[in-house]
């Protein structure tokens, strides 16, 4: 796995890592539907690189019949990209009473799942903001495993502007 990490904390042009506490302060999702384990690098309002280890115990794993390996339902790749996109776009405590933000996935375009993820894989999830208009933010999302692209999508999030910036 090759991912770039930055040292130190705080916002810089190069981005910064987020702790789990910081992730949970932004996203309302909780286990088992939290699809981000770590944030390696986040440039607020621009991009985010997150990691997620796929395990047997999560709800997205389906086993099917026969000798096929258990695999992650590809729709969970969309969820992982959407959560990473929200981390790129929103600030901590942007929701009501300073809690996690409330935003919504408004549209998915051109979703491709090239191959399936299996337990033991580490998803490298990237989200890059490519445009904004009103409360809508368009984000290009990708998921790689061991340097190989396994999924991608164009996502549109609805994020109230008061929680998006600042």
């Amino acid at each position, binding site marked *: 796995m090759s991912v770039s990490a930055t040292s130190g904390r705080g916002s810089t042009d190069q981005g910064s890592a987020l702790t789990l506490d910081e992730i949970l302060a932004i996203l309302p999702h909780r286990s088992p539907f939290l699809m981000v384990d770590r944030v390696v690098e986040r440039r607020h309002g621009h991009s985010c690189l997150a990691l997620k280890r796929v395990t047997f115990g999560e709800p997205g794993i389906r086993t099917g019949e026969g000798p096929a390996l258990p695999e992650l339902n590809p729709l969970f790749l969309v969820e992982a990209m959407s959560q990473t996109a929200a981390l790129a776009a929103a600030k901590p405590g942007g929701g009501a009473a300073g809690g996690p933000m409330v935003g919504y996935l408004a549209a998915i375009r051109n979703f491709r799942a090239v191959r399936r993820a299996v337990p033991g894989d580490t998803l490298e999830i990237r989200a890059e903001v*490519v*445009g904004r208009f*009103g409360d809508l933010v*368009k984000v290009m999302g990708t998921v790689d495993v061991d340097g190989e692209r396994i999924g991608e999508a164009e996502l549109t999030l609805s994020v109230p502007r008061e929680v998006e910036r600042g």
Partner: protein
Amino acid sequence: MSEDDKAIALKMKNLIISRLKLEIEPEEIANDQPLFGEGLGLDSIDALELVLGLEQEFGVKIEDEEVGVKAFASIDALVAFVREKGHQTA
């Protein structure tokens, strides 16, 4: 409408059709037809796509919703908007 404006209008229609994957022909969009609501039926997600398309293909930015409401009123309004922003030819 000048020949240049007609060419820009056609380019706008093709931009809308290709960015939004509409299954219609350019001539089916009237120049004075409202693009949103009961006109062409576009919505706010389509507006974001068009904002990005205009920036990429015409080099013009729509800064906020207020400007967007005026610019996206019709093809005629879009042509006037990109003309105002300095776009010269199609």
